[in-house]
């Protein structure tokens, strides 16, 4: 895709507990974004929410958010999935020519308000898995972790190393919720066991967070910012719901989504052309697993890549320089927060987490147990 749609600004926030209401967080993020850009709410042609009824504990979870987002008497809709899909809808709406700007507002107050693991519990089949009570988000992820490690003969230490890298990156990032300065593989390995091989620090923390992001057509983007970040490609795909039928060691739907996004962006050799990746890896094993599916790491070479420092902030393929979802997972907003982190990198504004000069980034978001559904964005300057 040519430079048709750009991200022109964003505001994000996350913490274990933001001590606020959904309405206040929405107002704060959107008002802040408008102030940053010197616009008011009438400059937003359409607003796409990304919230979830089961996270917010209410039917039509955005029903009170139109006003605080500035959408009173204006055009809005809601994508109930990970926020990256709401962003894709915003891009689609701008590409249609009907809208020249579109704002995405994504929220997940899962640290302070609700137990995050219920989110996946409610996704399970109520006529089987929820009756059997064997499967949950963590036990499912554990199967995926073991399956992945076994396929390539990786040791469980890989999980500790992946988590340590992510947590160290997160500690340096002011936007992250979980801060463990100097997190080490040993520290990760000594955290409490959940479902083997997964331990506490291999898993995402409950997080409050949100992000408001404004996208614009090429023409409008030039008026709104000197530093547009372009959406060059996007793709999405879903695989079967049934865990017992999936190849858990791979993520074929991520590979399909990436293929679509790369084709649109004209990327032939992702390892060479992509400067960094922000991946919604909710569990340590998912980062290398998804990076392989995204064509960023060679299959079976994850241990070498992590040990040689290739995946670090200073490496040749930095993965989650922001700290990723192990540093914070405000469900519903995570994918769009990953996008915002990639935008910071491409603008050279990522501070201590900056990877050096970055021109092309790939962003990933997921939904469903063991990442049943995956979405991929390619961003560039």
């Amino acid at each position, binding site marked *: 895709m040519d430079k048709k749609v750009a991200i022109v600004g964003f505001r994000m926030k996350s913490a274990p507990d933001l001590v606020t*209401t959904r*309405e206040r967080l929405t107002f704060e993020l959107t008002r802040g974004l408008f102030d940053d850009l010197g616009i008011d709410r009438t400059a937003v042609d359409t607003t796409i929410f990304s919230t*979830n*009824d*089961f996270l917010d*504990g*209410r*039917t*039509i979870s*955005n*029903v*009170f958010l*139109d*006003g605080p987002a500035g*959408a*009173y*008497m*204006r*055009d*809005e*809709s*809601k*994508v*109930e*999935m990970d926020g990256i*899909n709401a962003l*894709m*809808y915003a*891009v*689609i*709406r701008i*590409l*249609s*020519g*009907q809208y020249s700007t579109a704002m995405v507002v994504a929220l997940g107050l899962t640290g302070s308000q609700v137990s995050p693991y219920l*989110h*996946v519990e*409610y*996704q*399970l*089949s*109520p*006529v089987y898995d929820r009756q059997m009570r064997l499967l949950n988000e963590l036990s499912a992820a554990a199967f995926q972790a073991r399956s992945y490690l076994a396929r390539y003969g990786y040791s469980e230490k890989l999980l500790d190393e992946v988590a340590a890298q992510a947590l160290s990156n997160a500690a340096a990032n002011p936007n992250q919720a979980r801060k463990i300065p100097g997190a080490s593989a040993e520290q990760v390995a000594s955290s409490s066991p959940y479902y083997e091989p997964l331990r506490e620090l291999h898993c995402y923390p409950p997080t409050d967070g949100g992000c408001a992001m404004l996208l614009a057509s090429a023409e409008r983007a030039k008026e709104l910012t000197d530093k547009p970040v372009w959406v060059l490609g996007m*793709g*999405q*795909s*879903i*695989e*079967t*719901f*049934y865990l017992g039928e999936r190849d858990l060691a791979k993520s074929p*739907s991520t590979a*399909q*989504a990436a293929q*679509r996004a790369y084709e649109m962006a004209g990327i032939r050799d992702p390892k060479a052309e992509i400067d960094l990746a922000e991946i919604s890896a909710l569990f340590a094993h998912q980062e290398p697993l998804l990076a392989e599916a995204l064509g960023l790491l060679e299959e079976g070479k994850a241990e070498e890549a992590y040990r040689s420092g290739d995946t670090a902030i200073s490496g040749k393929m930095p993965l989650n320089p922001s700290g990723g979802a192990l540093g914070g997972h405000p469900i519903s907003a995570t994918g769009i927060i990953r996008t915002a982190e990639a935008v910071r990198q491409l603008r050279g504004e990522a501070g201590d987490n900056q990877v050096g000069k970055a021109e092309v980034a790939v962003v990933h978001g997921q*939904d*469903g*147990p063991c990442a*049943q*559904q995956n979405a991929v964005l390619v961003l560039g300057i």
Partner: protein
Amino acid sequence: MRNVAIVGIGYTPVFVSKRRDVCIPEMISEAVENAFKDSGLTPADIDAVVFGNMQTFEGVNLPHLWSADYIASLGKPVMRIATGGTTGMSAFHAGYYHIASGLHDVVMVVTYEKQSEGDSQVGLMGIITPEIMAMLAAGIDVTGQKGMGAIGGGSAGGISYQASSYLHHSGAGIEHIDAIAAMERRNAAKNPYAHLKDPEATAEKIAQTPLISWPIRFGHVCPTSDGATVCILASEEKAAKLVDKAAWVWAVANCASDATTGNLIEGIITDPAEQMPAQIAARQAYERAGIEDPKKEIDYVEIYNGFAHQTLMFLERIGMCEVGEAHKLLEKGELEMSGRLPVNSSGGVVSTNAIGTSAMNRVTECALQILGRAGEHQVEKEVHKALAHGWGGLMQYVTITILADKPKKL
């Protein structure tokens, strides 16, 4: 902007109170199969899927995940849309934009509700459960007997204020609400996919149903239904290859007002019957469709009417007649299938309400009228342009879709 056409429609074989025979994805798959049969397409032809329902009505989070294997979606992009009562049309709009953007050529939109699996009152109360709990602590009286914030209205709640205000400002009487409800139940009797059907319905019969809260009677209220609707959309190039005749999207628009600030006491700034979002969205849709005089140019209308007075009220709000004129059109028989401005010949939401499908069915019913495929409930006049309306949220969301019998000149 590209032209987009409806090339296939599939309903579950029935819309009823309780589908006791199937689980949720099994029910959805029936409508998917019917849409494939109707369009002659196969799963390989579908580029992307849009999926919509109100998930708290069934208590399944992101139900497209569970349904993925039943909706021919594996390996495809799937987007889940949920906006409350408007969900069906919001999902349709998303399908439209998928194609108008140039990114996809053929998109399937899947909507459903199986309301018998949950308690619909509970699902609706779920919109404001925490607020109700907080207000109870602050002294609110939910029975409506005393105190500030005592809503009243019984099970009709805030809707009764809307109906009351509508009657006052339009000059219509409760007998007109009885009459429009009767007309729609009679229409429903001719629609195989309608739920509450009564070929003998009359205003007098409706008037005998007990009052819930003035001016809403039981006979004015929609049922809760189980059912699914699927619509397949295609770009102009694809549609030309696929079908001889299609219903074409000329405009889509939507608008949100504001519910309340998160408490139950303070209301929106406008009168509950003013429905400013309907006025704004309709105006936008007419502009986008190049319609100068909707009264002359629109041949058929489907209104989202969870409550019978809304057919009349929204006809006025979207500019299909003057304020105070809708009940006069009704008296003259002009809203009937044989009339000058036929409306809800499907029976409307007041006869069938599987919520996720309700706003979508307004669009598919307009398409059937344009295609001349509405069977027994086909209107007498020729339908060249039709308007579908959706409504939801806490009375604050409105969606509009305008369809026509030929592609729009771009």
